[in-house]
């Protein structure tokens, strides 16, 4: 019979979607999930990930529309394209979920994370930590004679890099918010 020009595993939206379903390559994806901010909604999302064995690398959530009681959950996850499509479809099934956007695939996103670093050091190390903070455009938000707390925003990679540099200088504690992301452009 006539061969069809459709790739195996084309996703739900179009019969002509030509992405390769069979690719076994895992990649990181940032998903934006818009939900009703009602009791238990976060538990539903997290329960889905643990129940079906998906990864969560980072998760942030906050109400973004107080009047409409809408929250935005930003999830960074890993998987093959088939798994990512399954995660999207499963999230889309949750009743209070309004929209699921795979920012990585659909819209080269702007991704930012905020982190606080406590560094306890004196002498040369203390000065070095300040110097590096300046290069990374981190702000000092608390200081004592023995310590600083730096505040830094940036991509997760930038924050990882900052953490690596601070570790030998007396890094005591880190708090990270997880990724917030939006698509670029209008």
């Amino acid at each position, binding site marked *: 019979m006539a061969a069809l020009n459709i790739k195996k595993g084309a996703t739900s939206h179009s019969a002509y979607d030509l992405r390769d379903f069979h690719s076994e390559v895992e990649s990181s994806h940032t998903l934006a999930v818009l939900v009703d901010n009602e009791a238990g909604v976060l*538990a539903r999302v997290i329960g889905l990930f643990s129940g079906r064995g998906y990864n969560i690398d980072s998760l942030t959530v906050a109400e973004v529309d107080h009047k409409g009681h809408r929250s935005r959950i930003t999830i960074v996850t890993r998987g093959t394209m088939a798994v990512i499509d399954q995660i999207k479809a499963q999230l889309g099934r949750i009743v209070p979920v309004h929209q699921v956007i795979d920012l990585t695939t659909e819209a080269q996103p702007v991704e930012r994370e905020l982190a606080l670093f406590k560094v306890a050091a004196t002498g040369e190390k203390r000065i070095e930590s300040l110097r590096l903070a300046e290069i990374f455009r981190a702000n000092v938000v608390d200081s004592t004679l023995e310590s600083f707390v730096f505040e830094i925003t940036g991509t997760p990679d930038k924050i990882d890099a900052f953490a690596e540099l601070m570790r030998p200088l007396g890094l005591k504690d880190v708090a990270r918010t997880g990724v917030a992301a939006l698509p670029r452009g209008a």
Partner: protein
Amino acid sequence: MARQMTGAEMVVQALKDHGVEVIFGYPGGAVLPIYDAIFQQNEIKHILVRHEQAAIHMAEGYARSTGKPGCALVTSGPGATNAVTGLTDALMDSIPLVVFSGQVPTFMIGTDGFQEADTVGITRPCTKHNWLVKDTDKLAETIHQAFHVATSGRPGPVLIDLPKDVQFANGRYTEPKTARVDHYQPKVKGDIEAVTKLVELIETAAKPVFYTGGGVINSGTAASQLMRELVDATGFPITSTLMGLGAYPASGKNWLGMLGMHGLYEANLAMHGCDLMINLGARFDDRITGRIADFSPKSTKVHVDIDASSINKIIPVDLPIVGDVAHVLEDALKIWKARGRKVNKEGLAKWWAQIEEWKKVRCLAFTNSDKVIKPQYALQRLEALTKDRDRYITTEVGQHQMWAAQFLGFEAPNRWMTSGGLGTMGYGFPASIGVQIAHPDALVINVAGEASWLMNMQEMGTATQFCTPVKQFILNNERLGMVRQWQDLLHGGRYSHSWSDSLPDFVKLAESFGWKGISVSDPKDLDDAIMEMINYDGPVLFDCLVEKHENCFPMIPSGKPHNEMLLAADAAAFSSGAALV
């Protein structure tokens, strides 16, 4: 127009507004206000069960046999936890249920109060959605949304947890039509370009097969009707999963029988050898696919499903269509007719010739006996003696369930209620009561195994109290037969704990609840006994003592592909390691 009433009164009012006629339940401290409201009205009938699990299965039987949502009411704590198996069962098989549970008063939540359980937490993964209502003013709206969610898109069970103070308090009752349900509106129309592609595939396929599932039944009678029209007009063969039996009539000329692990040889080989597979509302379950890597290797696969997450979950398909089966079939039929009703006649003729060859294997053949009743023979006789009646069949889980699917024929949808996805022993008996409540004059038979049946036997009291003349057709092999079969084939014949010891005297048991008990062990007496069962006006416990060591064939050993089915004749030569799934 908003009326003031108590939360408990709202529950009853909302049930009436949604056309509910019956609710299955069991009282307790945390739902007393609702029971009080039920007491003070006559429109909604309450069926008092003997265990909350059974209430859910009855609601499932009611729902599956009517196409309407089933309703249940349980108390907090143990009432809610007892409901969990039923909820999971309904979720797996996409059965619409609205379940109400009582809860400790809002000010006591989180204090480990008496009979407090985190019901919304416990039932979150086993419901389609659930709600804890903390404000009586929001109760009516929540119930209306609950009915909408349970019945829209892919159906499923929902639960509303109701703290006792919310039931007592006064609030505003709002009508169903004012409820905000706009954001949950699953897509029902299939993408028209994709449907056109499907028609193109239908026009050229040489070896097509329809693979249909429970989604066709859930879509409603229109879907079954449209499917029959398309199948008959194209002349394509059709098979179905366990959940989809009856959507296409068993007497229909294109019917191949059920597919899957215990499906028919011709159905499974048609799936394996086809060049076009049209999946309508089935989900490539592991009992269907066998080994994934070898599943239907040469076919173009089309999958119509209302749930986008079912598509490409297990088997990558070529043409996905997200939509309701009835809507998609309606469009497909229209387009196919408009384009001249084309099919590949030559290809089809060869394909059917091949299928006829496969049928000659007579995969359901068994060696009958005149000394002992073979379970297959018992079902053949049950089929012969009941098929012309207004008949509904439920089953328990095990060998008897598979034999029932193989040997009973279903001519219409909603006549076959079985626990497919979860495989819940103890489902069939309560489900049969639920069916009988919905269809008081019909012949309702639960084809059971003795072990499964004991799991919810306490419901005998319910059947007696509510005068449901359900027939419990127990194929008693004194074995956990399906377990025994796997041990026989896959665990070296080491029958670890797979026999039914200390069984009751079923006839005396029946009599003790005011039922009729019939016991039969001689094949010669079988027909008369079945007729006696059918003609008795009341519940019957039919203890059919059958061959104890019969195995159910055909069988695709788990992890094997469709073309490596075991037939009864090959079984002796079969040896394999233990199976993973």
